[in-house]
């Protein structure tokens, strides 16, 4: 089977970016929106075609093959070289579907949402750049290639968060996202260097090979009590945690909501933020086998803590996009913990499958939630819950699609989120009780904050609007309806037949008792939300007063931003950078300036010699020659 056409999937958006970017002033908005959407549509169709061939014809003896097309790009030595190419295996094909579907839908949606914006064509150019980078990241064959595209998605995320560059808060948010993820990527880079230095390769296939250097030889090196490879993997995970907004690098994600809402849907909900999960999944065999999964345990606990932490904060936020941002962080924590508790072979690898399954369904329903939130924001021009209420009468399509997505994320039986969440909980239950309990709590909290949002927007108080809110145009409704359908039927795909840690299909069944507990908790959350938020009451205020301090802490996101500010401003800037700056200014610079000043004052004194009178010059010349002649005369005689 020939898959070489897969290279066209990322190259189409690249061509779009160049076309729209170079000619952004020349192409009228009416055309650029269509050009962008059609290009992504082509990528979408190609991805579906690839998936069809790969999943139905890609098995050899019941095992999915890894297919690689690559070209050596930089050769350091015979063994160590950086390649560029495409890698096709079950998870990369699944990610192709996710990225191209969401990207296509967001392109269609943006045609309506961004209508009339000054930078309309520029916006589509950035979206195409992002799609190219993300698809390239998914298809990367080695650590270095994934790093290159990793930085490219970071850069396009920066451009899109700061899209409204005249708004100071957007500029600050873009800067924050860039700096925080860059800091995490520093760890990633060091991790890559450590791993490649000790294993002599960048290739994923080599690193993941159960007979390869990394997995067989991890015990031969050690550093501070752990294998060097474990350190490398922890550092690589640090990069993943930065992109995926895991603790403690999550602070950029809520602020990133300053970008246009389609961007939040595409980048900060469905695709870029799951790159960290994808990275761990990509290196899963290495994570699992090196040091008996020490690094993987870290992934599990970071994921579990982040998901609980984010769910608590999400309960208290009043900006609907921020609630969704924390919800994203919480769900990504789910994926991370599922990977973390997973084992390798057959049914033991349930967590791996569950994580990828949840990634897939989450992309659909969270993308939809953001698009629906964007539709609401588009209609009433506010992000805050206090300005909303009773919108179900004005925006029926948005209302229904939001409800479907909220039911899906809450894990109500029959919707996609139910199936994937159940697999995650089953995997956690089998391998780690503590993480299982925290995940069940998170499941309840998820339903609670999601329906707080739902009732707050669409029911609740009957807000009087200055302009009657209008339902969004078809360009926005269609992607929402499409994703709503996927948010239901996505759950009925038998993921375990297509995706597993060892590329061998296995049978995964619903665990009915666990499913009952999880959906029971979810429904309980919905009922509590119904009681508290269906009608405007003073219960919520009373409850938040009861919790007092805890509520205040959660409302301020547990003061993480303040801690970061304290560490960077007071400690790093104040105690380290300021003295160094003083030294630089008063010693290093002063020396140089002193040398300059001395030269200047000296030349000031002797500049009179340059009188401009040629007779003076001639006098100097002649007296000089006379003196020289006299000296020579004296020496020779």
């Amino acid at each position: 089977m020939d898959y070489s056409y897969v290279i066209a999937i990322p190259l189409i958006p690249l061509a779009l970016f160049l076309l729209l970017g170079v000619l952004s002033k020349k192409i009228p908005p009416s055309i650029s929106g269509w050009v962008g959407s059609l290009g992504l549509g082509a990528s979408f169709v190609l991805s579906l075609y690839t998936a069809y061939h790969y999943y139905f014809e890609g098995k050899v003896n019941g095992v999915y093959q890894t297919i690689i097309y690559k070209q050596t790009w930089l050769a350091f030595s015979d063994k160590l070289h950086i390649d560029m190419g495409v890698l096709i295996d079950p998870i990369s094909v699944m990610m192709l579907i996710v990225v191209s579907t969401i990207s296509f839908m967001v392109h269609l949606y943006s045609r309506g949402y961004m209508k009339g914006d000054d930078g309309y064509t520029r916006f589509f150019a950035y979206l195409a750049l992002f799609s190219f980078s993300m698809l390239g990241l998914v298809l990367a064959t080695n650590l270095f290639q994934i790093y290159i595209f990793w930085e490219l998605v970071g850069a396009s995320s920066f451009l899109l968060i700061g899209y409204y560059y005249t708004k100071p808060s957007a500029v600050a948010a873009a800067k924050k996202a860039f700096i925080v993820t860059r800091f995490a990527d520093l760890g990633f880079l060091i991790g890559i260097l450590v791993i490649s230095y000790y294993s002599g390769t960048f290739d994923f296939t080599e690193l993941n090979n159960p007979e390869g250097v990394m997995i067989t030889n991890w015990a031969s090196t050690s550093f501070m009590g752990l294998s060097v490879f474990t350190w490398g993997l922890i550092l690589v995970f640090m990069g993943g945690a930065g992109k995926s907004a895991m603790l403690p690098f999550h602070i950029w994600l809520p602020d990133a909501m300053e970008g246009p809402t389609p961007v939040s849907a595409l980048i900060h909900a469905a695709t870029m933020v799951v790159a960290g999960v994808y990275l761990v999944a990509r290196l899963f065999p290495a994570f699992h086998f090196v040091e008996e999964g020490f690094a993987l345990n870290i992934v599990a606990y970071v994921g579990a803590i982040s998901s609980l932490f984010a769910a608590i904060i999400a309960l208290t936020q009043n900006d609907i996009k921020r609630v969704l941002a924390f919800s994203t962080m919480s769900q990504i924590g789910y994926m991370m913990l599922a990977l973390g508790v997973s084992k390798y072979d057959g049914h033991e690898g349930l967590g791996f499958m569950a994580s990828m399954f949840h990634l897939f369904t989450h992309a659909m329903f969270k993308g939809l939630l953001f698009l629906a939130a964007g539709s609401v924001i588009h209609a009433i021009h506010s992000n805050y819950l206090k300005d909303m209420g009773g919108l179900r009468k004005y925006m029926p399509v948005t209302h229904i699609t939001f409800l479907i997505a909220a039911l899906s994320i809450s894990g109500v039986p029959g919707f996609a989120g139910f199936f994937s969440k159940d697999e995650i909980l089953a995997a956690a239950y089998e391998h780690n009780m503590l993480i299982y309990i925290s995940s069940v709590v998170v499941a309840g909290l998820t339903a609670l904050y999601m329906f707080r949002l739902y009732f707050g927007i669409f029911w609740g108080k009957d807000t009087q609007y200055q302009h009657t809110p209008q339902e969004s145009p078809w360009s926005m409704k269609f992607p929402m309806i499409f994703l709503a359908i996927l948010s239901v039927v996505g759950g009925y795909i038998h993921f375990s037949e297509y995706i597993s840690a060892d590329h061998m299909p296995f049978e995964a069944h619903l665990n009915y008792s666990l499913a009952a507990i999880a959906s029971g908790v979810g429904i309980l959350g919905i009922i509590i939300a119904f009681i508290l938020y269906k009608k405007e009451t003073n219960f919520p205020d009373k409850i938040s007063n009861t919790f007092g301090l805890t509520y205040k802490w959660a409302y301020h996101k547990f003061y993480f931003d303040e801690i970061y500010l304290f560490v960077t401003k007071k400690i790093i800037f104040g105690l380290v950078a300021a003295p160094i700056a003083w030294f630089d200014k008063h010693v290093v610079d002063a020396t140089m300036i002193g040398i300059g000043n001395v030269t200047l004052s000296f030349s000031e004194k002797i500049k009179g010699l340059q009188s401009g009178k040629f007779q003076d010059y001639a006098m100097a010349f002649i007296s000089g020659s006379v003196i020289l002649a006299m000296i020579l005369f004296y020496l020779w005689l």
Partner: protein
Amino acid sequence: MIEGISIYEILSLSSILFFIGIYGFFTRENLIMVLMSIELILNAAAINFVIINTYLYPDFLQGAIFSIFIIALAAAETALAIAIIINLYKLVSSVEVKDTEIMKY
């Protein structure tokens, strides 16, 4: 070879001429006068060539021919210098040395 006059007197004369030229070159205020001083210096050199040829090597003619070269050279140089001075005059309406001091520090 001139009767009753030795080479020393003539060399003294050319030395005096040379130093008058040097003195004039340094002290004159007018560019034309400076040019004339340069002529004096060149003439002193030309006299030296002729006299040394005549007194020391009467059988040869190189010194005399060389002095003709010097005269030709001096004429060319004077033409050039006069052209420069005329242009300078057009520019600053003066041929004084002190008005040419614009190229300092």
